[in-house]
Structure formats: structure tokens, C-alpha cells
């Protein structure tokens, strides 16, 4: 896999240097010597003995003995041309070649118009293998990292501006989302992230969010019923503002822990009412691991647990504890793939609307209407999903329930069919077009879903 040409360009000058500096090749002295600086002597020296031919198999990087197990971006995914992806694929499975990796980073740098792209070798899962991590230093970047359209709920999308200055990353998002929560919100999200100096295992972040909310008629109606809103903390609010400092620790290679606090202020719908605060301690434990048994078989496991606890210590006017756990397992063998998702959620106390669990959006229990399932969301959640893929075709089966403690859990199911840009190590940004059907007696009303990275 290694190209001899770049090595040749490195070796030839050195071979010539030995000759030109007047050190004959069979001399054992280190260094390339010139003992007389006169032009005549230089000329004489330049015609000295030929140096030994360079061994083109010699790689100057000690890591060249290791096999590249994977190549991936750090932090986020990027859309690359087919040529760049093929170049990446070509290097996976081959020995580490610094020249080829430098070529690849230059290619990607030009394609993304980035300030710099650097590679980093990390120990692979198997002894003797390494993962290549690509770090893109983009001074300024505009993108739409995700969007979704659901014929039930409408649009959800994020527009992002990102500036990178050294290791400091500033992100500014404009968000409009009618899909993922019971509330329909739009607003901004500003975030600053950077690694802690002297260590590459700790990152700090500061986030500020400001959103304005709207509510569906079903939510207004449900809130009017005191029975269904007994576990709801705060009523409807017209805006919420959040400030969230956090730190992320890379505990071990696949395991990260994020700790932080979130100070969230809710401005009530009625201007005369008092503002509520949901000040919480946030902890997230995340595990992400992938295995590649052969060229054809790829497995990936992504699991996480998130705890948000509102406490009087942070002067929170609302008191609650929210537990959320999720897991995703993906298996791919050739053209076929299976993906299994599980999610469980539990809220104790009175959490505000944005914390409550939702099913029936573009991502979970697809095909159902979230307002029909629970117009105020629930404080209990159980959800699972299985997706089978062949080439770009996808069929999926979703099942789950969202309910309030003390009420019966009614399990709902849905099936769907669609096309996707596919799973892959290098293309994490999957685009999906799907028709989802809720499984219920009576009429069948399909829901159309289109989206990317949601």
C-alpha cells in the first residue's frame, strides 16, 4: 500500500547530500562533511563516490509497523468527496504511512477549506493497530448539521456557525424545533469549548441558550386538566434561558464522563407570574466502542446514562431528578445491517415541560403523533427499535410507551420503510427518507419523514 515515490523524494536528496558534502559512502563517519568551502573543492567533492542506494522500504516513522484500523474525524463529521473517502478507505488496513497521511490531510484541508487538518495516531483495539484521528482546524465554518421534516410535526433544523481559534472552539447555533419536545421552540445556542492546558483528557465548555416557546392546542387543552398535569413542574412558559458550564473527562478510551451545572430560567406564559428556575447538576456517562472483525463486519456500541438533578443548593425553584439511559448497537455485514436502539427514562419530582419524555417524533416511535400519545409528555419512558438495512433500503419496527407514574403504560408500535445514505465508519451523516405507519386498529395514516443526522 505504501507508495515509493514520496519516500524517494526524501531519500534521494540525502543520498546526494552524502556525495556532495564530500563524504564517501563507505566511510563510517556520521554526518555529511565539507572540509573545504572553496568552490573548487565543492566541485571536486560533488563528483565523489556514489552513496549507497536508499532502501525505499525504510519508513522514518516508528509507527509504520502498525496497521491502520480506522480513520475518523474528531468532534464532528464532515461531508467529503468520493475521492477523499476512497483515499481514506485505501489507507485503512494498510501500515501507517506518514507521507500518505500527510497527503490525505492536505486533500481534506483543501476540500473543507480548513485552516489546518492534522492527524493523530491512537492505539487501536487490537495490539499492533492504530486509529487515525483527523482534527480539522477550521477558522470559520457555516453548516446545517441536522434537519428533519415530519408530516405530523413540521420542520426541525439547526444552522451552525463555528469558529476555531487554536484549540478554542466557538459555536453559534440557530435552532427551530417543532419535533423533538412537547414544546415548539426556536432560539439560539452559543457554546465555547477548549481542552484544559497540559492535558488532552479534560475539556471544558460554557453554553448559553435562549429559546422562545409555542405550544400545540392539544398541550393547552391537556394543561387545563389538572389531573394530567399533576407531575408537571411549572406551567407553560414563553421563553427559557440557560447557562451551562461543564467539563468532560476522557476516563478511558471508549468512556467519557461529563459533569456540569445548568441554570435554566423559565419566563411564564402569563407575564404577571413569577419566573421559575430549573437549576440542575448534570452528569453524563458515555461509552462508545466499535469493532471491525474483517473488512465486511463492523460492530458499534454507543451507550449513555444522563442524570439531571434539580437541587435547592443551586437555588432551583423546581425540584426533580431525571434519569435517562440509552443504548444503540449496530451490526453490519457486507450490504446487510441491523441496528437496535433502547431507551429508558425516569423522572422523580416535578420537572418542567422541556425535561419530560416524548415519543412519536421523527426519531422515536416514528409514525405516531406525540400529542396523541401524551400532549404533556411523560415522566416514564420505555422504547426500543430494530432497523434492518440492505444496501440503502431500510425497514424498521418501533415499540414503546411514555406515561406518567401511577397511570398504566400503553405500549404502541409502528413500522416503516425507507431509504438511507447508509451506515458507515466514514459517513456518519445519514440521510433518511421514510414512511412510517402506526400499528393500531382502524384507519392507517402514514407519516412521511425526511431528515439528516437527527
Amino acid at each position, binding site marked *: 500500500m505504501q507508495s515509493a515515490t514520496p519516500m524517494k523524494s526524501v531519500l534521494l536528496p540525502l543520498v546526494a547530500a552524502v556525495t556532495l558534502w564530500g563524504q564517501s559512502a563507505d566511510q563510517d563517519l556520521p554526518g555529511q562533511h565539507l572540509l573545504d568551502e572553496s568552490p573548487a573543492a565543492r566541485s571536486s567533492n560533488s563528483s565523489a563516490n556514489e552513496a549507497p542506494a536508499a532502501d525505499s522500504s525504510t519508513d522514518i516513522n516508528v509507527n509504520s509497523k502498525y496497521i491502520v484500523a480506522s480513520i475518523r474525524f474528531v468532534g464532528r463529521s464532515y461531508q467529503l468527496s468520493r475521492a477523499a473517502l476512497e483515499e481514506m478507505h485505501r489507507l485503512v488496513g494498510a501500515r501507517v504511512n506518514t507521507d500518505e497521511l500527510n497527503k490525505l490531510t492536505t486533500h481534506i484541508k483543501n476540500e473543507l477549506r480548513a485552516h489546518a487538518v492534522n*492527524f493523530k495516531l491512537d492505539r487501536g483495539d487490537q495490539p499492533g493497530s492504530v486509529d487515525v484521528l483527523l482534527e480539522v482546524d477550521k477558522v470559520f465554518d457555516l453548516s446545517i448539521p441536522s434537519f428533519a421534516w415530519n408530516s405530523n410535526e413540521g420542520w426541525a433544523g439547526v444552522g451552525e456557525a463555528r469558529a476555531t481559534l487554536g484549540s478554542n472552539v466557538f459555536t453559534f447555533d440557530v435552532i427551530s424545533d417543532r419535533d423533538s419536545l412537547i414544546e415548539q421552540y426556536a432560539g439560539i445556542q452559543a457554546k465555547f469549548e477548549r481542552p484544559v492546558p497540559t492535558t488532552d483528557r479534560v475539556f471544558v465548555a460554557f453554553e448559553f441558550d435562549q429559546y422562545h416557546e409555542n405550544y400545540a392546542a392539544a398541550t393547552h387543552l391537556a394543561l387545563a386538566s389538572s389531573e394530567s398535569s399533576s407531575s408537571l413542574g411549572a406551567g407553560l412558559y414563553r421563553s427559557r434561558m440557560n447557562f451551562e458550564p461543564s467539563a468532560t473527562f476522557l476516563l478511558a478510551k471508549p468512556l467519557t464522563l461529563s459533569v456540569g451545572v445548568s441554570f435554566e430560567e423559565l419566563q411564564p406564559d402569563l407575564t404577571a407570574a413569577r419566573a421559575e428556575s430549573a437549576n440542575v447538576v448534570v452528569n453524563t456517562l458515555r461509552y462508545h466502542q466499535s469493532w471491525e472483525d474483517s473488512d465486511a463486519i463492523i460492530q458499534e456500541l454507543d451507550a449513555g446514562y444522563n442524570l439531571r438533578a434539580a437541587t435547592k443548593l443551586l437555588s432551583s425553584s423546581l425540584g426533580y431528578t431525571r434519569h435517562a439511559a440509552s443504548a444503540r448497537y449496530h451490526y453490519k455485514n457486507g450490504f446487510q445491517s441491523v441496528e437496535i436502539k433502547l431507551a429508558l427514562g425516569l423522572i422523580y419530582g416535578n420537572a418542567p415541560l422541556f425535561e419530560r419524555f416524548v415519543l412519536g417524533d421523527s426519531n422515536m416511535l416514528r409514525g405516531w403523533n406525540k400529542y396523541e400519545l401524551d400532549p404533556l409528555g411523560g415522566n416514564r419512558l420505555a422504547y426500543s427499535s430494530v432497523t434492518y438495512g440492505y444496501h440503502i433500503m431500510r425497514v424498521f419496527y418501533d415499540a414503546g410507551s411514555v406515561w406518567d407514574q401511577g397511570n398504566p403504560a400503553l405500549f404502541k408500535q409502528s413500522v416503516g420503510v425507507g431509504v438511507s445514505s447508509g451506515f458507515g465508519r466514514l459517513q456518519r451523516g445519514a440521510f433518511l427518507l421514510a414512511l412510517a405507519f402506526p400499528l393500531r386498529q382502524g384507519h392507517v395514516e402514514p407519516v412521511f419523514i425526511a431528515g439528516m443526522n437527527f
Partner: protein
Amino acid sequence: MTFWRTAIQSRRTRPALAALAASSLLAITVSNDDLFVRRSLNDIHVVAPRLHFLTGKTLQRLRDGATAPFDFQLTISAGSKNNVIARAVERFVVSYDVWQEKFAVIRMSDFHKWGMNASPNAAETWCVDNISLPALKLPPGQDLWARLEIRSVDQKGQSSPVSDSGISIISLVELFSRPPRPQQDHWTLETAAFHVDALKQQ
């Protein structure tokens, strides 16, 4: 103040001051205490116990699995510091084994490899120790000065003085005769005056 104003305005001292300013800009370290000469059989070697070029971002890039090439030039001057009578140049490439967590160095003139060591200081010492000049061709009884220059090599975006067809001696001389680029790390060290015949064989 008057002395400096006079010195700056003087035609005779202006070039000297300019040279002084340039040399102070070019050299991160110029100290007689930082470079020593030793003789090993027929070779002159230098020792730079306080020199550390594997630091900061370079060290981080190495730990990330990249290579770090450095160009070394060792010169000996006789009579005056400007009269270079012998010169050796070498390129050393340092890398870091991400599995064994050890540094490795290769001398590019003969692909002589150095064994692994966990310490960057040991890698630095090996580089300095593996550039030398033949002692027998140095004039005895004269004041000599040794000078070691080290420059990092930018692997990307730098026009190389070499091509597939070979290299011109002028290009190599120019490599070190040109001032280093602003973003290029560089170090310069000099010895005090010494006599080759006074050096003890080690």
C-alpha cells in the same frame, strides 16, 4: 542614552549593531556554557547538556504519532569565528511509538536507527552525539570554535531544496545561510575557543 544614540547613528557601528540584532533574533541560545567539545577516536563530537528541542507543540505532535525532522549543522571555525573550515550536516527524524510509548530516532544519511527510549532528552542527546567531524583534518595549535545549529523542518508547505534529480551544494549551503523562517524553531550553540590537540581522547 547618548552612547546608544551615537552608536546607532555611527556608520561604523551600525552594521555591527544590525548583525548583533540579527544574531540575537536568529539564535535562541548562544552561550559558551551550552556547548562542549569532546574527542572520540578520530572524531570531534559536541555535547549540549542543556539543549532541549523536543518540547511544546513538537513534543505533542510526536506523541500524536507524527514525525519531527530536524536539520543539524556542526561547523568548526579556525582563527576567527567567521572562518569556517569544516562543516557537517545531518537530518534526524524523531518519532514516537504510540504503543510502546517510546521515542525513536533515525539518522537520514545512513538510516542509522537508534533504539527506543521513553525519554525525549535521550533522543535529543542521541541526535547531538551522532553528528561529528573528523579531528585529524583540523589544524593543531590554532584557536577553534565549534558551532551547532538546529532547525526544525516543516513537512508541509515548505519548498524543499531538493528534487528527485538530486541536490545542489548551493541549496544545502543556503539551507543554513538563510535566516530561519519566523515559524521555524531553531537553536544555535557555540563553544568557547579550544585546541584540537588539547582534547583528550575518550
